[in-house]
């Protein structure tokens, strides 16, 4: 195993300082469920020389919710902690859809949503629902903090907008307006312990007449990053959400992605599954919105 120096800072500032001092050859350690495998098995490039743990940084572990302020998930909070936070299951069911299926219960007890996002796998299950809810990411550097929309956070497989010295502090998710619904579904060969071949989150807000006031459709594992299917969303806005309209939106979304074919499935099947899952998740979102 590659040898590395290990740091366990107490504050975000200190962490940012260590990261910027040691340069790009350093990695942040949260749950370690991705990082340790990468170090041991030499996947995703050379192993880091510096590992900076966020375990001792208190503020990164908070998960807070109020209907007015929305949901804030500290980047170091585990999936289990997030799922157990009051209001999450009720107001953000798609976050539960996307995170309760990550790994096993043991993984969820140690893995973090922040880590799932920063690892930036195109198939990360937490990303599509969070983007669909309109989440933003709070980023801290050695000197300043900044906020970016989560949909702009990813720049490629394993790559994010984080600059050397920066770390993700928290994710903020606004409480969805009335008459909204959102569902995330992924397709995997197995019923559990698997990785998305395609993941789709559909968020829909209806107006008083039952037309689509707003739609956000987010696709995972079918492009270098999670992507918004904007043309599909546009096709629904202002429309009656009929089965035909949803089917059309699904096929439009299938054209917006750029899937690869690999051991998990062909590109054609990924596009096809996108179409199916857009229809299914949008249907489920509508059902929630009409409740």
């Amino acid at each position, binding site marked *: *195993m590659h040898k590395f120096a290990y740091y366990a800072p107490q504050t975000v500032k200190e962490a940012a300082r260590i990261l910027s001092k040691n340069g790009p050859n350093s990695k942040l350690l949260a749950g370690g469920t991705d990082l340790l495998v990468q170090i041991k*098995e030499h996947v995703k490039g050379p192993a880091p020389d510096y590992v900076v743990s966020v375990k001792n940084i208190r503020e990164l572990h908070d998960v807070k919710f109020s209907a007015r302020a929305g949901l804030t998930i500290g980047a170091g909070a585990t999936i289990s902690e997030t799922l157990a936070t009051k209001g999450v299951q009720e107001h953000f069911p798609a976050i539960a859809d996307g995170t309760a299926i990550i790994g096993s219960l043991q993984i969820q007890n140690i893995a973090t949503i922040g880590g799932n996002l920063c690892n930036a796998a195109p198939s990360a299950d937490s990303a599509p629902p969070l983007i669909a809810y309109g989440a933003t990411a709070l980023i801290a550097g050695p000197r300043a903090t900044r906020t970016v929309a989560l949909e702009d956070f990813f*720049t*490629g497989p394993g790559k994010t907008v984080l600059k050397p010295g920066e770390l993700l502090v928290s994710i903020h998710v606004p409480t969805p307006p009335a008459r909204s619904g959102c569902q995330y579904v992924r*397709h995997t*060969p*197995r*019923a*559990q*312990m*698997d*990785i998305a071949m395609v993941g789709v989150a559909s968020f829909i807000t209806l107006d008083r007449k039952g037309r689509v006031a707003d739609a956000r459709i987010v696709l995972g594992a079918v*492009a*270098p*990053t999670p*992507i918004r*299917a*904007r*043309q599909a969303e546009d096709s629904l806005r202002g429309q009656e959400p009929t089965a035909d309209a949803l089917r059309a939106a699904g096929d*439009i979304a*299938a*054209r*917006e*992605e*750029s*899937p*690869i*074919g*690999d*051991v*998990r*499935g*062909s*590109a*054609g*099947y990924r*596009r*096809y*599954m996108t*179409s*199916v899952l857009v229809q299914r998740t949008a249907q489920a979102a509508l059902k929630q919105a009409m409740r």
Partner: protein
Amino acid sequence: MTAELTIVGKPMPRVDARDKVTGKAVFGVDVQLPGMLAMKVLGSAYAHAEIVSIDTSRARKLPGVVAVITGDDLPHNVELNFGSRGHSFLAKHKAFFYGQPVAAVAAVDIHTAEEALKYIDVKYRPLPILLDPLEAMKPDAPLIQHMGEGASEMSMHNADVAEDDEDHTEELDKEDIGDSDIREAAELASEAQAEAAPRNVASHIVFKQGDVAKGFAESDVVIENTYRLAQVHQGYLELQNATANWDAVNQQLTLWVSTQAQFYERQHAAEVLGLPIHKVKVITPEVGGGFGAKFGLVAPLVGLMSMKAGRPVQHIYTRHEELQASNPAPASVITIKTGCKKDGTLTAIEAKVVVDTGAYSGSPMSIICIMLAAPYKFPNIFIDGYEVLTNKQSVAAYRAPGGPNSSFAIEQQIDIMANEVGMSALEFRLLNGSEEGYTRPDGTPQPKIGLRAVLNALARHPIWKEPLGPNQGRGLAIGGWGGGRGPASAIVKLEGDGTFEVVVGTVDLTGTNTSFAQIAAEVLGLPISKIHVTRLDTETAPFGPAAGGSQVTYSMGVAVIEAAKDARSQVLKVAAKEFDTTEDDIVLDEVGLRSQSKPDKKLSWPQFQETTSGWTAKYAPVLGRGSVERRKGAPGYAACVADVEVDPLTGYVKILRVVAAQDVGKAINRMSVEGQLQGGTVQGIGLALWEEIMYGADGRVRNASLLDYRKATPRDLPLIDAVIVEQASDDGPFGAKIVGEPSIIPPAGALANAVAAATGKRIFELPLTAERIARAMGRVQEYDAMTTTAPTLTPDPSPIRGEGRGRNGRNGHGRTNGKVKTTNGRASRKATARKAR
């Protein structure tokens, strides 16, 4: 045997359960020796290459490295057969698959050993790679040529690739499929080869009975299809491992091996390391699963390393190595044509079986051929089997080796024919299922098989009354397995505390020691608490056969009966003398022995033991001996009914319920027999729905981790209802037959038939992925050519997998106009379709 059984036949928790659950049990990976070194292996960087040179000098200089070995360190007093995987535990001259060991390092810790691999400089001359067995058979295909040391250039050119017949017949013998017809096959083979000699054929067998042309001419229905199975891994939890300690003073090698067969392991290690057998001792710790894969793969290399390093050495595979460079189960391509009459009577079977054995011979090709036809009464048979070399890790056994390959093919054929003549799946199989006296394709008559008993038991099962909804379907399949039947020996002796110890040399994979305890208790007439079962090593244990071919309880059980009888008769003889009474006057119980007629005559077990082994003892010690010749063979037949629901859009298969029935002769321990039926079914479901080792064009495995090589998880599985059928065997213990293997055979066929019932589409290739099924339903194709409309971050990397496009929708049903309808595109198949995997 005994009229009323009190212990045999009851469900009994395993005697080793507590130790395993509490972590007390010692497995191979737990072995720790003073001064032990860790070993790592450098695998070939090419799937096929000449090894030009290996420079290990830099690796040797790394602090902490104790020894580095290469093919040059292979023992010089051994004539190594480079056509045998067992002899090729380090590559010499050539590497034949990616990851094949070319060098190994022993160091003070695993990290140092791993680091040292980077400093070994190997120069290769790459050779053409063959991955598709059909491609490898083509007349212009390059040859995969093994060679002995010092083979001349000329002999290389003239080398016959089919040089590994030895291993092959060994395999036949091991699984006991009968020994007729192999020579005849060779003659037929030479005729067939005269037409067009296929290349890279390691072995070829033809099984022939009657006249298939005549059979098809008499048929009302003739169906022909091609079935494909992927290479799959046995998936044992405990990784392959061995620990070796070379005693240079006594020139003795001790091996701790995670193995199924310690006596085989000893013999193999001695043979390839050039040591006398009595100088090798194998100790088998608890084994965390083997399923056919743990026969001599690891120990020789670790043994050689310990001999070179002069210290104990341990080697544990990684899961990556397991999937890239171990010995999984073979992929196969089976083209099969079957016929029947309007009334459902089978007429003929003709098949071409191509088994991809990987880089070395050793696949169960001939068994696949036999088991294609053995479960049914086919009057006319022609089966042409080829074992073909490719540049992949070579294959070995996996629970009923080849059984799923045969069953997936023949069981869909049978289902299609039953549909065509309007019979139910069960009726058709009851009409045509084989029974005692019918000859198998290899000419051996079927012994007392319980296929019909299994089908009759299934017919009464409530599953048939479960209603099926839309997109749901039910499938039935059967499968049988010959199994092993080796000679066996055991000892039963009385210990000082008054317990009886059963001493065996067989490895307990499935709860066999618990069954032995039950058998011994039953025969001795004592409660099971008075029995202990001990497995000793190869130096101290009486010979026991391999834990393979499902034979341990079937073969060894009889030796345990004999040993227990012997011990009991010795006890009775001593007691009768001591009590001055007759033997039938003696009663044995938990406390001790007593005379029925003379109430004052009694001894506790420790007192009794004093009379045979104490300081002043006058009687001979109680030492029961059981040593029995090989059994006649007691094949196990199994059947599986699966209900599925197929997502009409995605193709995802959800299993609703599964029934697994099997004739076990007599369930010695109902609890472990149920577990065996369920476990085999789970593995059968896994290889049916998810499992496939996928190779890239360079011969590297593309899914060499458990993330992308998928075994079933609990949430994928329904409760499996195990139905135990007991049709006693002639010579097994209490009528037991083989148990462990057959249940893995039918699930793939049952699921394929259920999917066909649910969707109206047949899938001819395993695994039955959602994508394959969605494609068969014609839903995906229009999306293949779709182009991206939205701007993307980076251009689409070229798709690696042309999955399905060239491969699906090729197969279909034959039509029933009495003439053959071949719906396969055998001739039009493009190499690229296979390579795209």
